[in-house]
């Protein structure tokens, strides 16, 4: 979990500015902690998105608009 937290903290320095991030937290890939990144819209080029950070997997989810319920 500590490694996932470190990777989460580094994420914003590794991706281009303007990426439509609407949430970044700690999720699971299989049984292992992973960085979970929610995007409002898909980037034009998703090859800029890191798949791992310091060995921790990064999961991307396109969640669109989030509204109060």
């Amino acid at each position, binding site marked *: 979990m500590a490694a996932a937290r470190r990777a989460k903290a580094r994420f914003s320095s590794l991706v281009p500015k303007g990426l439509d991030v609407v949430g970044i937290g700690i999720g699971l890939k299989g049984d292992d902690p992973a960085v*979970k990144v929610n995007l409002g819209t898909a980037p034009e080029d998703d090859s800029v998105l890191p798949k791992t950070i310091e060995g921790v997997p990064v999961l991307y989810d396109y969640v669109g608009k989030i509204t109060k319920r």
Partner: protein
Amino acid sequence: MKIESARALKLEIASEVVPPAVSAISAAGGFSVTTFALHKLTKAEPLVALGVAPGKTEKDVRLAVRLQRHSLERAGALLENIRKRAKDEVDVRFVGRIAKHALPWYRQRQRPLQPGSSVGHFKITAGTIGAIAKLRKTGHDVILSNNHVLANENDAEAGDAILQAGVFDKGKLPKDTVAKLTKWVDLRPNGANLLDAAIATLSKGIAADPLDYKGIGTLAGVRTAPLSPGMTVSKVGRTTGVTHGRISAIELDKVVIQYDLGMISFDDQVEIESTGTTSFSAGGDSGSLILDVENRGCALLFAGSETGGPNGRGLTYANPIAIVLKRLAIDLHGD
């Protein structure tokens, strides 16, 4: 036939064909009657509904005839006359009495007050009673829900009326007032927020059932162990009732949510995905308390998306319960 012809035929049959057929049945002994309370008796008698049904092609329509009495179905002359006038371009079906669907309990007035049921500030539509909690100082019972449910996104005053059911569920001032707004945490359009929460003190004489989470079980107080991804959770709320899910992320920062106030950002949130066949939550479920597998309160539901998650049914967002209880100086029952 053309739609204009179908419309004209509807009027013709309603005025010239149906009334004589009904009179004939009445003269021959009348319709059967179903037993129900007299106060439910209205002047609207279920007989024949007329409309327009699709035809053989996209540009073509037929006359739709929906019979609500078997006596009419057996009245051969009536149907024969309709078929003749419509040149057999008619779709006849027996549909019987059409009843409105009963509202689920969580959208109705509940006394004693029930967690999971409809509630709201008198100027909003409706949200959910997350919990009947107690003030740490006095022990008085309060309703716990969101700021945007009880305090109208900061646009409210202490003492404002809280209705159960909420206005959207036919709650009215003053008869459905159950509590007075007491305290809320302001939503801040600038900077990071941690919670969307508020409380309202129960009015004198309003009873509540704090431990009964209908469809889930008995509240067992607050969860003190940290939340972790993969944990199974459930909730009962005003719109989707009881649903089950799993925590898909914790410590979620920069969660940007659309309010009437504008876009508001939250840090340290919990994300939940559905494990059922529908979404974990929908509009109106705001304020629901999320319970762990041991029925301990662990988070306060406040937002959601329509897409995302492994099944594409959207994701739900909630404040961790510890910060909610601390900032509002309340405790859950059942500890």
